[in-house]
């Protein structure tokens, strides 16, 4: 049987299952069109319980082509990166077995190489070397090929970045080494912040994330994402939703994980977080669980991130265009 694929465009109005919060009065109406989010799924990304790297690469290609409306993946990647640049891939390895799948990172590396980025100019990074190793990555600080290391290998630049309530040092990987960053988040809930998808993944760039979980991370998550180097250098987000978690996060909690078999991609991290949040709420409802708001951890930081002061993206579903891709 040939692999069937179909494209379905849909626009999220009223977020089908959960009523959206009233918009912040300060949120501005987009001038340049809607934010696009692509949700690409393939039931065959897992084979015998393991991730099929070839299918992940194929799924990534479909998603990127759909997002940028091109026929060849290379054309999509050339819109994000340019030969000669140093590109960081921010993975999320906090949760051991629930971390970014190595196969997805490898797929991104493969496409970056094709787009003209030298192997040694690709840096897979996260907070700590040990976290990367526990997630199956091999540390490579100065060797050949793509480099892999934590913030603890390079330290933090001395400049204190301040925005709103947040003041942090940033990893030198971001400030000194990378021209651009591909942000690979995860699709999961968070026991304090509500969800931890793409915006919160950038907590891995700062030296003091522990200080920014008060009030469900609001406004801190938004403030951190507004730091200039993060705002300027994070070019694209790919959410690893091959597996997802709807409760108990960020720790790896098997009873509350399910195979979403997908990737969620886009340039607007706020729109991605809003979209991912709705997916998690849907799953929670299916499982008979309370909403995040009912549990006192509604991810209000998403709305803060979209307000005029931050201007990081759109949280209003009327301004988010979602493209669904189903393969296999």
């Amino acid at each position, binding site marked *: 049987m040939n692999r069937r694929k179909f494209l379905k465009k849909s626009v999220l109005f009223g977020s089908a299952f959960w009523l959206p919060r009233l918009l912040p009065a300060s949120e501005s109406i987009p001038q340049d069109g809607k934010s696009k989010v692509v949700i690409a799924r393939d039931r065959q990304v897992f084979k015998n319980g393991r991730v099929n790297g070839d299918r992940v690469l194929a799924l990534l290609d479909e998603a990127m082509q759909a997002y940028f409306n091109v026929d060849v993946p290379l054309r999509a990647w050339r819109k994000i990166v340019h030969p000669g640049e140093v590109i960081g891939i921010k993975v999320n390895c906090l949760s051991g077995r629930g971390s970014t799948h190595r196969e997805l990172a490898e797929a991104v590396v493969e496409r970056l190489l094709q787009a003209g980025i030298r192997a040694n100019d690709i840096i897979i990074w996260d907070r700590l070397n040990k976290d990367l190793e526990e997630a199956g990555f091999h540390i490579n600080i100065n060797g050949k090929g793509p480099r892999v290391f934590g913030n*603890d290998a390079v*330290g*933090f630049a001395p400049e204190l970045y301040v925005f709103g309530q947040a003041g942090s040092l940033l990893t030198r990987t971001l400030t000194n080494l990378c021209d651009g960053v591909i942000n690979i988040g995860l699709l999961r809930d968070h*026991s304090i912040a509500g969800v931890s998808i793409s915006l919160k993944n950038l907590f891995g760039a700062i030296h003091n994330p522990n200080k920014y979980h008060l009030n469900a991370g609001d406004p801190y998550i938004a403030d951190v994402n507004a730091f200039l180097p993060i705002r300027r250098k994070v070019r694209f987000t790919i959410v690893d939703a091959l597996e997802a978690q709807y409760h108990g996060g960020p720790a790896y909690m098997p009873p509350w994980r399910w195979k979403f078999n997908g990737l969620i991609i886009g340039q607007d991290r706020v729109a991605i977080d809003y979209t991912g949040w709705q997916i998690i709420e849907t799953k929670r409802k299916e499982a008979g669980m309370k909403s995040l708001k009912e549990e006192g951890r509604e991810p209000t930081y998403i709305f803060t991130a979209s307000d005029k002061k931050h201007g990081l993206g759109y949280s209003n579903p009327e301004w988010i265009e979602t493209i669904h891709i189903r393969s296999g």
Partner: protein
Amino acid sequence: MIEKFSTIDQWPDKQKQGMKRRTFLKLASAACVVAGMPVLNLPSGSLALGATGSDNRYVRKARYWESKAHKQIQCKLCPRHCVIDDHERGYCGVRENRGGTYYTLVYARPVTYHMDPIEKKPLFHFYPGSMAFSIATAGCNLNCKFCQNWEISQVTPEQVNSFYMPPEKIARAAKDYGAKSIAYTYNEPTIFYEYMYDTAIAGHKEEVKSVVITAAYIEKEPIQKLCAVVDAIKVDLKAFSEQYYKDVVHGELKPVLEAVEAIHNRGRWLEIVYLVVPTLNDGEKEIKQLSRWIKRNLGPDVPIHFTRFFPQYLLKNLPPTPVETLDRCKAIADAEGLHYVYVGNVPGHPAENTYCPRCGNVLVERIGFTVKAMKIKNGRCPYCGTRIPGVW
């Protein structure tokens, strides 16, 4: 240029032989007075990197926590009561859940040690003119926007160079260098509770006292237990308003006041510092309420220091506290009947001195951190015989 020290054991042999103790103390004191900052052995231009990594010498089972479902733990050391997943840390960044057991990561892991005059803490009624062997680790359970030591308080242990200095070594070093006390200071010692507690015990074995410099954002039971092994506590009372604690300090006032009362009720020598931040906590009403609370709940003999703020960290948009504002705070506290009201961070200010509350004579004359004259005899004013509370 601040002299950089490594551990005592790592002091180069050549310098060890050539340097007498008096010279070492002079250098250390000069460094302290000039900068008042802990020494950080940093590579230039960045925070230190994984120098001590996951060295298990520093890991000890923590105190004050309880188990929850799914290997979570809940910390009970400070009022945050962080609920922490496996592999995660709480707000302070130095205590970690490993497989459902909670550990401190900073036991015997100071990032700095200095010999400081006790007046620098400040403790004005505790062996004036003596020296305190001062230590700190990484971490803090608050995030004050004006923190002058944020480069150690707002980091994790992996982000800054540290030393291996078990309690007995600290106690021995303090004794060897002639310190009257060991001071747990610079960052918030609540978060290195286990280390502090054991070091205080080790210090007493060497006949060295212990003083704690704390924001007192700590639960009642641990502070009560701590009072049994330390000799004096100076509390940084940030403000007398919950809103300030929420917005500027990211803490709460109520549990701090409860901890202060607990310290007082346990009979530990107590002094209070109130950092006066222009426009934020310098209102007349607030100072009056603070002064009345102290007099009613602690008594008029607990010293309070109104200290001058200088722009720091995340509060660089405000000017230094006008001296007139400090004078006004002192006048309010004096009028409310507090006996020992000081002005801090204004070297040469007459309110640095200790005066007899009865006859008004100068009993301890100070300029900055230096005691020029100490006239208290047997704990009493030599002029009128009034008992002067403190540890002399």
